[in-house]
């Protein structure tokens, strides 16, 4: 297993912040309760954007479980090897029914490391039969080199025309390992080279390989296009690696990143930065407006972040077993101060900037 400073999830450490309500309390008290900063509700109300309502559903994001081979310091899922919550085959069958009938054009599998779910390959094979236009798997890269049983994942992804989206916080070893654990950089480079070898990420290839950049600390991501240019140059020159797009994603102040912000005494300054960078244009395209997030146990959420805060959709339909897209689309999106993370600057979503 990859070594890291804090090798256990907040759950395993019995941290107070493993409890969703405690995180929500933290996000509502202090600078937001004493009027120093406006709440997200107050902010979007200023520009007549409350209540937030869904647009057409485009993305179905399914979290196959919180188990992961890494314990990244910024992880909003609080994922790790000690998390045992993974989707059962029964829930997967319910998800497959939804996938066959959804109007969404994108299926997005995430985790933890979704590949660690023992039914992952079966699920991908079945889901790919539905002929959905864009089939994403969010792979942490190191899983491909974690164990022999995963070595053939690049070929498996290729066979099912999966769009691979992988995290890569920096093109240097130091910054990457600091955020994601010792040894992650070298394994990630090896995995990217293997993905390139089967055709992923090559300039004219239909096999899509995109990278996700999260800042490795209490600061916001810079310009996505400039970062992409720097990443492409460095990875090509240093390792001969190619990829298609870079998505710059802001770290949301929840779970382990919130824990880090508080412990490093950066919480208030970070919230100030998010509020100062608030961009009403980003609210228009924020991802909860075109996404439904399904948790490992089949419950429905406005986004993966609300899932981790246990804020189920405000609808009479709350579980995949009773899924009804039309009913679900007629709902108000649940918000709290963490939402500032998706509306800062050029905005942030699982697909990168939105404004």
């Amino acid at each position, binding site marked *: 297993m990859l070594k890291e400073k804090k090798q256990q999830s907040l759950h395993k450490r019995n941290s107070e912040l493993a409890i969703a309500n405690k995180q929500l309390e933290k996000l509502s008290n202090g600078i937001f309760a004493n009027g120093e900063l406006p709440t997200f509700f107050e902010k979007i109300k200023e520009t007549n954007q409350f209540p937030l309502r869904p647009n057409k559903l485009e993305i179905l994001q399914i979290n196959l479980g919180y188990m992961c081979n890494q314990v990244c310091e910024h992880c909003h899922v609080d994922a790790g090897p000690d998390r045992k919550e993974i989707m059962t085959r029964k829930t997967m069958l319910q998800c497959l029914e939804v996938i066959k009938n959804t109007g969404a054009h994108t299926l997005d599998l995430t985790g933890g490391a979704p590949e660690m779910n023992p039914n992952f390959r079966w699920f991908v094979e079945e889901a790919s039969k539905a002929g959905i236009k864009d089939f994403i798997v969010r792979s942490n890269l190191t899983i491909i080199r974690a164990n022999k049983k995963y070595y053939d994942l690049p070929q498996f992804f290729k066979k099912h025309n999966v769009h691979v989206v992988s995290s890569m916080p920096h093109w240097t070893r130091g910054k990457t390992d600091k955020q994601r654990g010792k040894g992650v950089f070298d394994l990630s480079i090896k995995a990217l080279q293997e993905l390139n070898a089967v055709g992923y990420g090559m300039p004219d290839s239909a096999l899509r390989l995109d990278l996700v950049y999260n800042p490795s*600390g209490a600061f*916001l991501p810079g310009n996505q296009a400039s970062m992409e240019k720097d990443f492409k140059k460095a990875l090509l020159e240093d390792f001969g690696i190619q990829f298609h797009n870079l998505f710059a994603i802001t770290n949301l102040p929840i779970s382990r990143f919130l824990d880090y912000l508080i412990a490093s005494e950066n919480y208030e300054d970070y919230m100030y930065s998010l509020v100062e960078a608030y961009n009403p244009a980003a609210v228009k395209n924020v991802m909860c407006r075109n996404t439904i997030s399904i948790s490992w146990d089949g419950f429905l959420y406005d986004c993966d972040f609300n899932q981790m805060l246990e804020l189920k959709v405000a609808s009479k339909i709350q579980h995949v077993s009773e899924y009804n897209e039309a009913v679900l689309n007629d709902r108000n999106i649940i918000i709290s101060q963490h939402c500032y993370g998706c509306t800062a600057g050029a905005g942030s979503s699982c697909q990168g900037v939105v404004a």
Partner: protein
Amino acid sequence: MTSKTYYDPADLKKFGKISEWSEELGDKFFEYYGKVFEEGALSEREKSLIALAVAHTEMCPYCIDAYSKDGLERGITKEEMMEAVHVGAAIKSGATLVHGVMMMNKVNKLEM
């Protein structure tokens, strides 16, 4: 005024308020400032490193705070930042030392 020091980190957030007492000049300054840092013949990244070096030679705590963070946001590495600071330090110390020529000239002129 409760602060016991001249510099307060919270004042950096209030920089924009400079315009409140002289709107026209303040607005012109911030427009100019924004324009200077736009991508031009130099990239925004290069300008950020120049700003960081100058922040140090000017010994401006607000600027060091702002451009250390700006560098991180742009993916600039610690090594690049420190090299930029050394460039500033080299020019600063060189500027001191080159004045030694003035001293030499003066001494040479006065001494028999």
